């Protein structure tokens, strides 16, 4: 009896999913049980980048924010989970090698869960974005290596979107401890791991020393950008020496160099640009 009811209920849910999905509405909106199921799905499929509790990891945005960069409606989120976001690390459903492809119903469960975790109002920035911008392009020297909206250097990661794709905490951590977690660089289409911003020092066959950041590397070649933003394309077997390091090329900005207040201002600036 119970079983039959369960099946007919399951059938109803499937029908509801199909009908609602056709209109881009979440058929499970507000359903606490669906949110719980969504939490498990989230842990398996999403938490790798977005963190347990959807608060954002170092590599995916904080999804508890009231305002999200790429999505507004549940239908938007459904599309993003299903198809990924081109040009970002967000993969399409079932292609991230983590977890398995989710059914439509499971995706709606995840959306229900995300909505249940959301804060109600946009968080007030803790810092002064205008002052943060001055620091970014001025005394803090961020723009010597980082570009935002087409202005700045090329040696470090481009940061236009970082305020939208990473949490405040992880940005602060990257400034205070740049070597603790190297930023991701190039992601190749078929490759499991992205290139990281590793530091490389080589001596060429004619004795020239080159130090910089690896744009890419394999067992036989390395592509380096040096501090002067020159690109060096090198074959390893032709080098006198090759050394790489997980000590970031970015200097460690501790509180003596950049106060907590100043850092909050810079973060506020990045969020003001990236979370748009």
């Amino acid at each position, binding site marked *: 009896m119970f079983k039959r009811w369960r099946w007919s209920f399951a059938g109803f849910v499937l029908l509801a999913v199909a009908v609602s999905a056709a209109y881009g509405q979440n058929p499970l909106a507000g359903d606490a049980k669906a949110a719980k*199921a969504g*939490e*498990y*799905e989230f*842990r*398996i499929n999403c*938490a*790798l980048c977005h963190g*347990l509790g959807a608060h954002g990891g170092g590599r995916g945005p904080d999804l508890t924010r009231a305002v999200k960069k790429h999505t507004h409606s549940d239908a938007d989120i459904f599309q993003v989970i299903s198809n990924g976001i081109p040009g970002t690390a967000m993969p399409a459903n*079932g*292609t991230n*090698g983590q*977890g*398995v*492809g*989710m*059914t439509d119903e*499971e995706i709606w469960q995840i959306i229900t869960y995300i909505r249940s975790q959301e804060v109600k109002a946009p968080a007030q920035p803790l810092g002064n974005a205008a002052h943060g911008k001055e620091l970014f392009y001025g005394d803090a020297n961020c723009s010597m290596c980082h570009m935002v909206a087409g202005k700045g250097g090329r040696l470090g990661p481009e940061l236009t979107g970082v305020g939208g794709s990473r949490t405040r905490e992880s940005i602060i951590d990257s400034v205070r401890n740049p070597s603790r*977690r190297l930023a991701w660089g190039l992601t*190749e*289409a*078929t*490759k*499991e*791991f992205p290139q*990281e911003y590793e530091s490389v020092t080589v001596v060429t066959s004619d004795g020239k020393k080159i130090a910089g950041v690896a744009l890419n*590397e*394999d*067992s*036989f070649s390395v592509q380096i950008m040096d501090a002067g933003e020159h690109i060096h394309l090198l074959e390893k077997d032709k080098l006198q020496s090759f050394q790489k390091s*997980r000590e970031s090329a970015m200097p460690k900005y501790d509180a003596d160099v950049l106060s907590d207040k100043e850092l909050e201002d810079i973060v506020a600036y990045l969020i003001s640009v990236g979370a748009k």
Partner: protein
Amino acid sequence: MRARGGFESAQMLGQPWKSGASAPRQGATEMAFRPGVPGLKPLQFSWTQRGAEAPLFHGTAEVPGRLLATCLIAILFAGLASAQVTFDRLRDSAKEPQNWMTYSGDYSGKRFSGLDQINVANVRTLGAKWVYQTAATGKLETTPLVVDGILYATAQDNRAFALDARTGRPLWMYQRQVPADIRPCCGHVNRGLAILGDKVFMGTLDAHVIALDTKTGAVVWDVAAADYRTGYSFTVTPLAVKNLVVIGVSGGEYGVRGFIDAYDADTGQRKWRFYTVPGPGEPGHETWEGDSWKVGGAPAWNTGTYDAVTNQIFWPTGNPAPSNRGEGRAGDNLYSNSLLALNADTGKMNWYFQFTKHDEHDWDATQVPVIIDAGGEHLIAQANRNGFFYVLDRTTGKLISANAYGKTTWSDAKDAEGRPVANKNASPTLEGHTVCPGALGTTNFMAPTYDPQTGLFYVTARDQCDIFSTAPQPYEAGHAFYGSAYFPSEEAEPYRGFLKAIDPATGEIKWKFEHTSPTWSGVLSTAGGLVFSGDAEGNFIAFDAASGKTLWHFQMGGAVYAAPMAFAVDRKEYVAIAAGSAVYTFGLP
């Protein structure tokens, strides 16, 4: 000289389709005999093309001259008839190293090619001969077969195809619509075909077993093995044994009840099924709590091996379900994460060995179990996903040794049999904690190789640790059933990938090569003193089998998820591997 008379040209070695223009002239191939003891003559033989610098292969075979001649005539006849692949040919595949007729190249799982035309001396001149683009997206894990000049392979979208192995030009293509609601774990995958008679056999993502005509790709028979909507699928390369097509199911992440099936190659009729999770009343059933056996998993998604002497199939099994949560399935959970020795005719189990009892880390034991005869011992070796390299006596299933070959933290003790056992800190927790290896394992599906010339076992290995945390999910048919989540542990970054050469006698790692990042490529060894493997950056690499030194590489432009193989056509050796979405073939200038 008897054999020489019937062994004059490659044209007569089962390649009747060759045009007269391109066929070598009669007598162009010579075979040198160095007779040994009468009756059982150790034969030194070598094929040499007149004027050519590189012979195709040099072999030593303990085969009576008369038997050899008979075999050659049989092969010749088979070749002229219709290039039929008989069970005898599969069993004696070492006699025709120009062909690659099973997933691992032979029944023993060695993935060793007897060809030595490409060798340590000339591999630096290797170049691409042709590339076949499948345009399939995702992971191309196929190992091609080559029989008598035709290459047969699969793509991950329920596709099989046949190519002219010399040129890469297609002969036929078969594709079965992939239903939108299939539930394969870990993406769309297919690892290849089996061949027997005039048919090739594939398992499909929607859990069918299909026989295709080797000449046209036409469907000869099509059997639904299970209901794909409840999470069953096939990704494995089947194994043809006698007149049976043996195949194991996938679905360990969906709470399936695993099985290994054998189908009549002619009709598709199922001859036996071995459930890897015993039902009520069967031995081993008591190792499952309550009804947990019904969704116990233990899939069988990688190809096993076969010992013709004892008529046993050795097939490995995968994780119990849910994969990362032991609560609710108290007990050893037989026959998950085990090696099974099954009678090939009946599917009855002779013995089993369970590598990881009551697994909570998704450590499928589905790695190819490699048959090795050494020092008068009949062994079977497996580099397991749990980080240990196991050697068993394959007549009894008794464990001989188990040695770590990568970073492991889950076990620091062994039981009375010598089996590594889990320590107290290994189980996943709600908050999550770090265990090595991670869920992807020290190795995974990537095929290893055993080189009888060096006596070394080569395997792709990864050092990665994961944080395992529980996420108690109820079972729902057709829904993912993990019971937990895992994340790569930051403390262990970066994750490191290796090719390791293990001495099976001691477990010692004789050499290792560190890749730039972990790779999913399998490994091939050849009589040319070479080991071939690919990397995540798209390189195909030749190593000196003895030292691990890189001798040659080629950038293929896509990560490797497949294992290499070797074959010969027109007495020219080729090495082939899938990378990105294409099949690449390499040869000497």
